[in-house]
């Protein structure tokens, strides 16, 4: 009875992606200065997203857990020293990315177009709800959503379906990180709701874009390893 090969490969890939995560967190790499009170947009959650996409939800869970622990250990502010804020939300990053990617892998463009339309409608409904409680956030969200969806539609028309699936998975993973961490922070009383919205919009949106870009770039490059043998790898 031979040992489960894919299980071994999953463990090893998860291990290496976890090593990248630890490198990004502890060497403070990949910090993109964004002019917000929380400092920098991060890319340390991206290996967890990629683990989920490439090797499934379990690998994503493990790398996410590692990211949570690393974040917990290297945190210098009380908010991120709390495991319920730093650890628990991160478990879901890889899982949601995997769940977003698997159905979209082979989706046709028409399906994706319909999804974007539905998404836009949901966003507008959500904006209205937010507007009723926090007017400025509702309006900001509506403007951002419209601009975002318009750009998204234009980009999708030019791009391959597989790439779109990757970008969506990357975006979903990053959103999971931002939304759940901020929700936990508000629930535990570290920041008030308004501040959370502010950080979420100013941080979250660049992070989502950066995540989508890098996830697409990385997975596309990895898929080509088998095909293209020559050329520099750097």
């Amino acid at each position, binding site marked *: 009875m031979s*040992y*489960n*090969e894919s*299980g*071994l*490969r*999953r*463990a*090893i*890939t*998860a*291990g*290496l*992606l*976890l*090593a*990248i*995560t*630890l*490198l990004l967190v*502890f*060497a403070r*790499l*990949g910090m*993109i200065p*964004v002019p917000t009170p929380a400092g920098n*947009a991060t*890319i340390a959650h*991206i290996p967890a997203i990629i683990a989920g996409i490439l090797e499934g939800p379990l690998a994503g869970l*493990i790398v996410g857990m*590692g990211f949570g622990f*690393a974040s*917990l*250990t290297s945190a*210098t*502010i*009380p*908010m991120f*020293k*709390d*495991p*319920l804020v730093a650890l628990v939300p991160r478990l879901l990053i890889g899982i949601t990315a995997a769940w977003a990617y698997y159905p979209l892998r082979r989706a046709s463009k028409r399906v994706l177009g319909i999804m974007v339309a539905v998404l836009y409608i949901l966003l507008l409904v959500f904006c209205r709800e937010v507007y009723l409680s926090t007017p400025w956030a509702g309006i900001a969200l509506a403007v951002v959503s419209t601009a975002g969806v318009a750009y998204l539609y234009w980009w999708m028309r030019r791009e391959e379906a597989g790439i779109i699936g990757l970008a969506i998975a990357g975006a979903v993973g990053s959103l999971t990180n931002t939304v759940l961490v901020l929700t936990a922070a508000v629930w535990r*009383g*570290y*920041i*008030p*709701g308004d*501040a959370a919205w502010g950080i979420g919009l100013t941080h979250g949106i*660049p992070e989502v*874009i*950066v995540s989508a*870009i*890098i996830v697409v*770039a*990385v997975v596309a*490059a*990895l898929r080509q*390893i088998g095909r293209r043998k020559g050329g520099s*790898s*750097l």
Partner: protein
Amino acid sequence: MASYDALRHVSIGQYIPADSAVHRLDPRTKLAIAGLGLVAVVVTTTYVPNMVLLVAILAAVRVSRLSARYMLAGIVPALPVIALLALMQLLFYGNGQGTAALGSRVLLSWGAIRISTAGVRLVIVSLMRFVDLLFLTSLLTNTTTSSALTHGMESLLRPLSAIGLPSHELALVCAIALRFLPILGEEAETIAKAQASRGLDEPRGGRLAFVQYARRLAALIVPLFVDAYRRAEEMTMAMQARCYRGGRGRTYYTRYALGRTDWIALGLTVGLLIVVALAQYSPLP
């Protein structure tokens, strides 16, 4: 990219060798105590149990002969941010979030600012929790080597493999991650230098500078991922070629046994937790 050379020396929570009771404890004991301590710190919300926990953890730091000052040194640069966030917490927590249920009195109310006793308690408890967790994680990582931690974790999780949790695979993931951290650090350094030599500039600033940053980062990160993935493929093949069979029936070279100190430590921890639980659920402040 501040200093390329620093990348290969990245480490998590440096192990500091010393001869103390804490260093000599079995890693499983330390992990169990750290885990229970973590839960206790997170769950307690009132003054008295947090004071008890803080005193206990400081005592443990003393026993371990480590320097508390060293552990605190890491947060010194962040003190202004911590102070600012604590201030915001103090001023704005009073808005909503069911503070009335906690029997909280409002001390000062002015416009959007509301300082309540619940807010004060939250700020102080948050700070105590922060110090607790800082010391707890430092204690764990400074007194235990990474390989001991991995062994301990796998050993603790092994009973769960009966219900399908892959404890050995989990330990393998951790061991690989720790082993490859310096290697990938070196790789990242090489990539950074290579890209710099090809003219990868510092971003020029401006409102959309973050897009430039992102592109620059992608040029550094993508080769790193490709390298890691290639190593993963090679390693899988290498391990299979050496007939790696996973955790089934595996024996270990280093073996750990629980000693008297371990049981004493565990007993003390359980006792402490009972005291903390009683304090949390009693009418004490």
